[in-house]
């Protein structure tokens, strides 16, 4: 047993790096300013005070559980919904009240929304025809798009003669053919099976790099978001933004307990500051690099892979004996549910490790491993209102 994972993890994360926000060399091509939306007949806003800046050529994801208002946010950007308050800027111009057919954004809809009576070619030509592009130019441009999404040869099929993945590609081609400044994607992979989804992930990412168009990608799947995005905005159940950060920072430096829980798995330790300024979670004394600048309690997020297992954990700042309660075999690794005193900790070990239930193991983690997280803005707002 060893702490093999630890060294890898340390190199991966960048805890000292500040939240990157929008890099200075990137022009905000899209900006949402204090956008709120309450649907007619509803008292609860679907989204509240959304502030987002997306840079040119960025792959930006909006991640959240269902009902978090991420699709609403996308629809506000696309011009399908008018925000109740706030402003939407595209390339610096206020487009809050510009109808969708006059916005320089295109959408890949959740169900693709291909025109069923048109062939794939007619579907892809449609935006060009609406823009009154010269007929001779349309043919070449459409052909090029079919090549880009690897659908050459399927031009004369109707949507119902195409598979889900193929429809997806046609929808992409239709949305990209006029080279919008921003492409909106509303859970585009939701209807595809796992294998196809993985293929499309690669296609999407490659396509985005290739054409350099800004993507705003809505998903509830953290794997998709973490894998593809330059930056991710996490929204919570009440339509509030929890954090905007790079996938790296989101994972290793979650701003709130909500983010920590939503992105990957984590152990949340509710600690109180004892009389000597140390941290105590239940009956566990924890060593962490937490500036105890005032608060009497703090929540720490400790990723399972941050916890090392084995005798040599005794050199680490935190070192405990844990009892294995439950083992979940995941193939490449095993997930252990362990109890340490009165705390439950999830620990991960390589899949080959021989561990039995009820075994007592030694675990430990570094001073930096557990990061403090704030309470979700959700609760904060609830308190304030």
């Amino acid at each position: 047993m060893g702490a093999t994972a630890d060294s890898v993890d340390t190199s991966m994360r960048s805890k000292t790096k500040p939240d990157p926000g929008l890099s200075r060399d990137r022009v905000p091509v899209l900006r949402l300013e204090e956008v709120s939306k309450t649907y007619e007949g509803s008292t609860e806003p679907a989204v509240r005070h959304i502030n987002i800046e997306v840079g040119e050529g960025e792959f930006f994801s909006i991640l959240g559980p269902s009902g978090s208002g991420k699709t609403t946010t996308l629809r506000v950007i696309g011009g399908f919904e008018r925000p109740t308050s706030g402003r939407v800027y595209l390339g610096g111009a206020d487009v809050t009240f510009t109808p969708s057919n006059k916005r320089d954004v295109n959408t890949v809809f959740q169900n693709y929304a291909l025109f069923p009576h048109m062939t794939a070619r007619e579907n892809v030509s449609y935006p060009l025809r609406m823009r009154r592009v010269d007929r001779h130019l349309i043919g070449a441009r459409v052909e090029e798009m079919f090549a880009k999404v690897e659908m050459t040869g399927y031009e004369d099929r109707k949507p119902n003669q195409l598979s889900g993945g193929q429809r997806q590609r046609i929808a992409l081609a239709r949305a990209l053919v006029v080279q919008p400044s921003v492409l909106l994607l509303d859970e585009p992979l939701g209807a595809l099976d796992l294998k196809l989804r993985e293929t499309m992930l690669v296609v999407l990412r490659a396509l985005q790099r290739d054409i350099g168009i800004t993507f705003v990608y809505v998903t509830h799947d953290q794997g998709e978001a973490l894998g593809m995005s330059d930056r991710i905005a996490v929204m919570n159940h009440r339509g509030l933004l929890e954090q905007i950060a790079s996938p790296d920072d989101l994972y290793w430096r979650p701003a709130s307990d909500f983010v920590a829980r939503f992105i990957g798995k984590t152990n949340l330790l509710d600690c109180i500051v004892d009389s000597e300024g140390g941290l105590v979670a239940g009956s566990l004394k924890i060593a962490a690099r937490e500036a105890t600048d005032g608060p009497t309690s703090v929540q720490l997020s400790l990723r399972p892979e941050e916890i090392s297992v084995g005798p040599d954990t005794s050199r680490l700042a935190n070192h405990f004996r844990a009892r294995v309660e439950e083992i979940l075999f995941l193939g490449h690794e095993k997930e252990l549910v362990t109890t340490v005193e009165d705390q439950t900790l999830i620990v991960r070990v390589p899949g080959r490790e021989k561990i039995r239930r009820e075994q007592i193991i030694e675990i430990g983690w570094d001073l930096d491993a557990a990061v403090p997280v704030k309470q979700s803005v959700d609760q904060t707002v609830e308190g304030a209102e």
Partner: protein
Amino acid sequence: MTQTTTRETLSVSGKHGPPLRVGIRALILSPTLLWILALVVAPNLYLLVFSFWSNEIGTVVQEFTFENYVRAFTSEVFLTLLVRTFLIATFAAVMATLIAYPGAYLVVRKLGRWKLAAALLVLVPLWVSYLMRVFAWRIILGERGILNGLLTSLGILGEASDSFLYSVETVALTLTYIVVPYVFLASYSSLERIPESLYEASADCGGNSFRTFVHIIWPLSRPGVAIGFAIGFVIAFGDYVTAQMVGGLEGTMLGTIILQQFGTANNWPYGAAIGVSIMLASFLFLAMVSLFSRTEAQYE
């Protein structure tokens, strides 16, 4: 429908195999088949056969002849009435479509959750007896009718006019009114089926609402409208009650002649020949309509 039924049957009694499946399928279909055979196929075949028999002073002689058709297509009365009936029916169906389709579009697109209520309101007249609906127009257009009353009291007309009733125009107007709900129903259901996302996708592609209508909504709803148009046309084409009640002599339609032949004139074979001619004419017309209104599309 039949397929799922078959599969269910299979799972319940799989060991019996195909014979039972066929038997049950036939059993399930039998009411429909019976209906079609007894009430559609048989009478029409009978009508067809009758139209080739001859008539001798009110008695049907079972002797093959083209005489009835020759008589019909050389008869000026028949030809005049055929053209008139065709024109009236076409006019009524076209007018009803022009009224009902935009109406259905507005209801589906603009009324939101009230659309079902609005659609029901349009269909309310269908609950009233057909005769009452036609009669209503006599009350409106008659010499002592509402229209005359209004116009004379406003001083637009010096005295009540009898020219509103008993004319081709009256028949066309009344038939338009009669068939509007049917065209509306067909238009409504075809428009209702078009998912909201297609409107949005079209706008997203840069199409304004007019071009969205022309390129997306019209092609997708056209087959439904054609069905509504066809129903309206057939109803108007075969109608004789309206012609009799508000048409007068000038507004006589083909149906009236058929009624006469089967009634007072007592010449069934000739009546049958006219009936068959009407059916063929409307069938040809509707075949053309459906040919030009076809859109091949399947929603995802």
